[in-house]
């Protein structure tokens, strides 16, 4: 009887500890964002905490990573931009965005895939502990139809 009670208490402690660790690391925390109209929300998959997709394959995804090495918005947006341009992405627009009062930077790229022009937006928000990146992309012609709805959805992202 005593042994059963002890095991139950231990399991409860382990669950609470794991949840606490998970919160501290930032992994597994849910992302709050209003999906664009007509999009369906998927599970985050291997790389993201949130994914939503339109019927014809325009995707919006958000990931939350640790702010390590510790950097500000300029560092992270610059590092991501340099990586993408090294990979052949053509930046055609960059501007500041604000999501629920938190300032971020959005860079819009074009790249060809399977003989078609594709659009890829990456929006970066940085807090003391985390780096949030919201990616949106798809075939240019399909993406253009959703671009305004995607921009509005990004403004609803709960960065904190």
């Amino acid at each position: 009887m005593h042994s059963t009670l002890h095991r139950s208490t231990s399991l409860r402690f382990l669950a609470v500890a794991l949840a606490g660790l998970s919160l501290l690391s930032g992994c597994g925390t849910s992302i709050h964002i209003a999906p664009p109209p007509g999009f369906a929300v998927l599970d985050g998959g291997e790389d993201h905490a949130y994914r939503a997709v339109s019927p014809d394959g325009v995707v919006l995804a958000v990931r939350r990573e640790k702010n390590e090495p510790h950097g500000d918005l300029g560092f992270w947006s610059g590092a991501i931009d340099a990586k993408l341009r090294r990979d052949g992405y053509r930046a055609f627009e960059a501007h500041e965005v604000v999501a629920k009062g938190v300032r971020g930077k959005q860079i819009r790229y074009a790249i060809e895939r399977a003989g078609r022009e594709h659009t890829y937006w990456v929006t970066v928000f940085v807090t003391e502990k985390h780096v949030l990146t919201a990616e949106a992309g798809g075939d240019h012609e399909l993406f253009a139809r959703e671009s305004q709805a995607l921009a509005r959805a990004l403004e609803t992202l709960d960065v904190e």
Partner: protein
Amino acid sequence: MVYRTSFAVVLSGLLAFGEGCAARQSLPEAAPYKASYGEAVAADSSPSSEEGGTRAQASMPVGEPASKGKQAASDKVASSEEAPGTPILIYAGALALLVDPAAFAATIDSATELATKLGGFVGRHDDRSVTLRVPSTHFREAMRELEKLGAVQSRNVEAEDVTEEFHDLDVRLKSLHATRKRLEELLQKAANIHDVLEVEEQLARVTEEIDRIEGRIRFLQSHAALSTITVTLAPKTPTALKTLAPLPPRTIPLPIGWFSSLGIDYLLELSR
């Protein structure tokens, strides 16, 4: 016998007149004058030009103040008593615009609204093009407003000068009316069935020719009063950003693991 001879002489004289009309009819029509948009606009900018019978003058109807309205244009082409030298032009414009594909429908709607506002209408339209008919007095204004709906890929304006054809048709019509009147008078005087049949045959031929010419005049009048503008849309593709600074000669990839899963390929791989 004397009566028959004189009847035959009169009828052959009328027929000879009719042949003269036919000969005029076979004259080549005025070659269409194709003006570039630049020429048309340049001509429009000097509507008070003193040059007579030049291309600049030929473009004058486009540059007329809108306040004169479409009635003025209709009157101008409808009247057969207009001042000599006033050109009668049929305008046709074509615009190819680059537009965001998401805005195709809205652009077609805007073009339609513009045509209606200027007193015109839509001839036909589909998902990517629209053909508008607008009063010729508003042709230039319509082209300018339509050019604002997207990035202009190409533009083309053609002005066909039908003045000579119109006046030629008008003269032939008057001659044919006179011939018909005389044939009708001759018919009253015909003394035997042979003469009646002969005159009636000529009357039918002249009447048919009058109908044909009147139809052609109506066609020219309607096309000169209303210009045709065809707008074609094509998708606008993003261009490389000019304002962002180019990359320095060498950048070093940062050792940040999650960067490897950034990009469109990972994003669109939904099974991952």
